[in-house]
Each structure stands twice: as structure tokens, then as C-alpha cells.
């Protein structure tokens, strides 16, 4: 093999691998990214049922109801709008009414939100930053409250 050919092989391989990688990233970007919304966003935005999204806000006080099995119903609110959520499974330790929560799942055709994971942080005063930002927009929460200020742990 001449020097030129060797260089060609090297550059060719690099280009192929890079091309494949860029293709994979672009493809995955389109299909596997999950957007974060508040209940008000969802009311505004016409999100197709079945599309994976994250829904965040406060667990509405008095909304948590359990079925006979392990299914839980609760509502996530941002003050303006409220979204009913169902979740089957074990809730995180610090899931409380009136506390911040982030859930991931999809809307059902009848306008409910079916979550397959619920995140709450291991801290009394915790508020996920996404939720805090949304609540700030709604004027429900002010800077200076201890929300999210200390290092904690999310469980799912």
C-alpha cells in the first residue's frame, strides 16, 4: 500500500465512523428526547396522546387517592391548571402532598396523564429546578425560599 492509500484508508474510516455517529445522534434526537411541561403548558399546547413527556408541578393537596392495588391517583398543579395523574408502582419516599414532583409518562386519549416514573427529591424543602422555574413564571414561588437549595437525591 502506498502512503497515499494508507492515508486514504485512515481518513475514510474516520469519516465513515463520524458519519454514522452523527446520523445516530440526529436520529436519536428526533425520537428519544422528552420535553418538560407544566399543566398550563399542556392545556395550551395540544400534545398528542402517547408522546412521552415530563410533567412537573406541585402535588395538589388532598388529591392523592389509592386504588385497591398499587395504583395511585393524584393531581399535579401549577396554580393555574391541574392535571390528573395515575401511576402504578411504589412512590418515592418523599412524595408528599403540596411538594414538588416530576413525573414522566404520556397523555392518555381521555386527557389523563399516565406516569411510569415519579421523581421526588430526598429533601424536605426540595423543589426540582424545572418546577421552581415554572412556578416562578406563575408567580407562585419566590426566590429565597429554600427550595432546591441543598444537595439532595432524586429517586424514581
Amino acid at each position, binding site marked *: *500500500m502506498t502512503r497515499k492509500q494508507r492515508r486514504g484508508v485512515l481518513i475514510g474510516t474516520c469519516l465513515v465512523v463520524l458519519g454514522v455517529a452523527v446520523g445516530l*445522534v440526529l436520529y436519536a434526537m428526533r425520537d428519544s428526547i422528552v420535553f418538560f411541561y407544566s399543566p398550563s403548558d399542556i392545556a395550551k399546547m395540544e400534545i398528542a396522546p402517547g408522546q412521552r413527556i*415530563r410533567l412537573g408541578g406541585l402535588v395538589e393537596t388532598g388529591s392523592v387517592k389509592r386504588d385497591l392495588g398499587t395504583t395511585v391517583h393524584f393531581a399535579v398543579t401549577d396554580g393555574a391548571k391541574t392535571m390528573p395523574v395515575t401511576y402504578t408502582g411504589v412512590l418515592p419516599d418523599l412524595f408528599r402532598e403540596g411538594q414538588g414532583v416530576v413525573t414522566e409518562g404520556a397523555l392518555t386519549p381521555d386527557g389523563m396523564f399516565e406516569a411510569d416514573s415519579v421523581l421526588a427529591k430526598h429533601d424536605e424543602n426540595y423543589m426540582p429546578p424545572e418546577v421552581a422555574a415554572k412556578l416562578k413564571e406563575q408567580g407562585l414561588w419566590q426566590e429565597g425560599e429554600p427550595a432546591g437549595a441543598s444537595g439532595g437525591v432524586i*429517586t424514581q
Partner: protein
Amino acid sequence: MIAETGHYALILALGVAIVQMVLPILGTRLNDPRLAAVSIPAAQAQFLLICIAFGALTAAYVTSDFSVLNVWQNSHSAKPMLYKISGVWGNHEGSMVLWVLILALFGAAVATFGSNLPRQLQANVLAVQGSIAVAFLLFIVIASNPFLRVNPAPFDGQGLNPVLQDPALAFHPPFLYAGYVGFSMAFSFAVAALIDGRIDAAWARWVRPWTLAAWMCLTLGIAMGSWWAYYELGWGGFWFWDPVENASFMPWLAGTALLHSALVMEKRDALKVWTVLLAIITFSLSLMGTFLVRSGVLTSVHAFAVDPERGVFILGIMAVFIGGSFALFAWRAPLLSQGGLFAPISREGSLVLNNLLLTVACAAVFVGTLYPLALESITGEKISVGAPFFNMTFVPLVVPLLIAVPFGPLLAWKRGDLLAAAQRLTAAAVICLVTIIAVLAVNRSGPWLAPLGIGLGLWLICGAATELATRSKLFDVSWSETWRRLRNLPRASYGTALAHAGVGVMVIGLVSTTAWRIERIEALAPGGKVDIAGYELVFQGVEERQGPNYRELAGQFAVTRGGAPVTTLTPSKRAFAVEKSATTEAGIHNSWRGDLYVVLGDPLKDGAYSVRVYFNPMVRLIWIGALIMFFGGGVSLSDRRLRVGAPKRAKARRVAVAAVSK
């Protein structure tokens, strides 16, 4: 008094670090070897001073001195001793002190054991190392002082986040930092080479052991972290592609590439510019990890306190070091002599492929980790990039790499024979095929790719064995001759084989857990039963228990298999009064077949509880694989230490090795 001593030692260390940064550079510029030699005692003194500071902070924690703000915020007198000590690095300020301690340790090691380095290189390396220390010591002294006092001293502390009170997590940060920060060595060598404008094969020989040691620590640190997440966070997963996990994983990927490219440079005097660049990239990724964890830009399992001022400070440090080193690279790299090109099918060629795939995979992780941050700061849209993205990008890039791994060590330097290598691997390929078919025949459940994944893991293990068999001429010569050859193989060969086999073991664990995991969520009243993977669990009720600094509600589960009692699992929910927090402790029964994993959920009506039960097949292999990789690194390191200690003997030795491997 002790706290003030520690604070004073930190400030002194900063002063010494400034000396260590300035004088050696001046010395090499002015051609004054005495000035340059100051770097050695300076590095040692800096290490001692930071030891004193770290010791002082530890003493404050051990004696529960709550007049120190940091101790008050992160400790409590009722905490077990182990967690009082690990509390030192369980918070932002203390972990920064650990960070610089490890940085200084590596610097002191180069100063003390680097007597065989060229004087100028050693001085420059220590100067660069000193400059990193200056930046981070300044950061600690100005923005993260762990020795601040509170007056009056509170009666008792606020406690450490309960999920951090765990043996694996006590040792996770030190190893992780030893890895992260250890890569600063490669960075310092790279920048020193750029300052010199000179680089040769010896450079790689000096850099490799440091990089390998850092890589070993990082491997172990990441594995410990994932093990902890597995049993402590209570949802049975071991890797979440969480941004902060990625922040430690990216330096690992780049560091793995660096280990391999340094090999090409050492043996063949090629890929020099690339190796230098990779060294810079690896440490830059480590710095970025430090930034991501501490700036509060991420919501994560591991993120420290949110403080924008600190974030900006670390961002500044990052900008200086990453920007500066890349600028230096652009300016000086053309001075470095180029190595020759080589045949695509050769050991070098295979290592280039390794580098290509590892760096591209690392880039994919980078995009997935930073894209949400970039998007949010530009458009304000909030997204999360989770496991699906990484499974779709990272996995397809790494699988070809893993398929190629067994070929690499079987190819000769300069010009390899792919066909001969393939022939040698025939036995390995047959074993894998048979296994794949057997797995398919026995287990029809799960994704169809899973048996292929098991085959891939086995392929790596058999490939590693093939390499040793080939080198010892197994079956070609008498048994005693093979035995003699095996004994005389350089340890580095064993290291390579072990590390590659470790990856294989890990792949088997990852694939079987991901593909064949069983999950059950049930509402169980006392007396209720769950059947899972051949086990029968009977819920016997809950009891309240008192721990050293928590109260817990423990469920009792009698586990039987085919009627024979196996064990009793007691998953619990712990409530920590001081920290006002709760944790979930999973009940885990380990076996080679897999882990039975039980989590106690919320109380339901009529004394029932929601209970989550998993069966994770062969999940242990993930961490055992990481341990094997760690030991492989250690075996390889024990070989190289000889060569680094005596470069002359090394030459003779290498000739001998070359003769053996022919």
C-alpha cells in the same frame, strides 16, 4: 484552633503552589537548574500542607466540632464514625479539599519518584501541576472555605444526607477523584511537552503508568457508584445515564482511549500529536465533570449545593485551563515531530480504530449530556435526554469496538495479518456461536438481540484467552514449554487480557440484567405471596426498629425455593429525624443466578403494603467485570513500574519480549 491551623495550612499551600508554578518555568527559561529544581521540594511541601489541612478538617469531623460551619451543616454527633469521616468529603467544601489533596499527591509522587525524568520535563510538569493547584486552592480559600466558624457554636449538627451514609459511598468519591484528578498528570505532561516543543517515545512511557493508575481508580470509583445506586436508591437500576454519571464516564472513555494511544506512541513513536490532544481532552472532561457537579446547572442524584458564584468561579478555571491548553496546542503542536503513517491492518491500526470509536462514543455521550443545557439556555425549552438516547447512540458505536477487541492484540506491530488472527480466533468464535444457539434454545423470552449480547461478552473473554494461548503457543509445543512461556510472559500481557476479559464479564452482566430482568409490583397484606424466578416470597408483616441515627419500618419476607427455605429478607424504610429525610433500604438476596431484590413501598389499606420485587439475572457480573478490569490495570502497572524505574534495563527487556512474541 485545629480549624485555624487547617485554614492557615491551606493558605500556605496556595503560596507554595504559586512558587511551584512560577519558579520552574523561570528556571527553564533562564537556564538555571537550581531554580527549576525548586519544583521538587515545593510539590512535596504543598502535599504536606494540604495533608495538614485535610487532617484538620477530618479532626473537626471526628470530634464533632460544631463551631465549624461545615461540620455543623454536614455532621451530627449520633452519626456512626465511618460516616463522620466520610462526611468530610460528603459536601462541597470538604470534597474540594480532597480534590486538591489528590492533586498534590500526584504532584508529590512525580517530584519524589520522577528522578529518572529529564530535569526540564519534570520541572515543567510540576509547574503545570502547580498552576492547577493554584487555581483550585484559590477557589477553596475564596469561595469554598471549609474552616469557617459559627459563633455561638450550635448544640448539634444538621446531619449528612442519609442516602450518603453508606459504606460504598464512603469510598466512592476518593476513588473517583483519584481518577479524575489523576488525569491531571497526563495533562501536565502534555502541556509540558507543548511548552518544550519536544516529545518522544520516552514521554509516553512516563505518562502511561500515571494514566493507568488514574484509570484504575476511576474504573473502581464509577463501579462503586453504580453499585451504590443499585442497592441504595431502591429501584434496582445500576446506571441511569444521569448527567453527573456521564460527567465521570466521559473522562473514563477518553482516558481509556489515551491509554491505548500512548501505547502506540511508546512502541512505535507515532500518534504523538493525537496523544497530546487526547491527554488535554481527558483532563478537560474531568474539569467539566467537576463543574457540572458543583455549579448547580444540573438536577441530579449527585449534584452538590447550588451556588451560582461557585459555578462561575469553576467556569473561569475551566475556561483558563481548557482554553489555554487548546490555544497552546494550536500554537505549539506543529512543532512536535510527526510519526510515520502505518498499515491499516496492524496493531497500530487496531489501536487507532479503538481510539476513533471510543472518542466518537464519548462525543455522543457529550452531546446527550450537554444538549439539554444548551437548548435551555438558548430557547428556554426544557428537555430531558435519557437512557433511550444513549442506547440508540452509544451502544451501536461501542459494539463494533467490542467485536474488534480480540483482534487487536493478535495483530503484529507494523503489518498484521488479519486472516491469521481470524484463524486463531476460530475456537473463540465457535464457542460463542454455540453459546448463542444454546441461549436461544433455552430462553425464548426477552429481546432477540440479548443472546447475541451474551455471545459478545463471551467473545471478549475467549478472545483474551486466545491471546494468552497464542503467546504461549498452546498445543503447538509441549505442555511444559507452554507453561514456561506463560510464566515468562510480561505482566502487561496478562493485564491486557484481564482487562479485556473484564469488559466481557461486564457485558454479560449488563445484557442479561437488561434483557431478562423480572419486575413485580404487588399490594401485599401479611401472609401474601409473590412468585418470581422460582422463588416464593411470603410477606410476614412489618416491625419498627431503632438504628443508631434513624428509625426504620422493616418488612419481613420469608424466601423459599422449591419449598426449601433460602433466606429472610428485610427491606425497610428509614426515617432520619435529624436530617428530616427518609431512605429506602432494599432487601437483596445475592446468588450467581441473579439477585432477588425487594423494596417495601407505601402502606395501603388493611395493613397491606405496596411491594416491589425484582429478579436481576447475573447482575453481579457488572461489578465483578469492573473489578477484573481494575486488577488487570494493577497487574499491568506492576510490570511497568520495573520498566519506568530502569529505562535501560527496559530496552533489553523489550528486546527479550519481542523475541518471545515472535
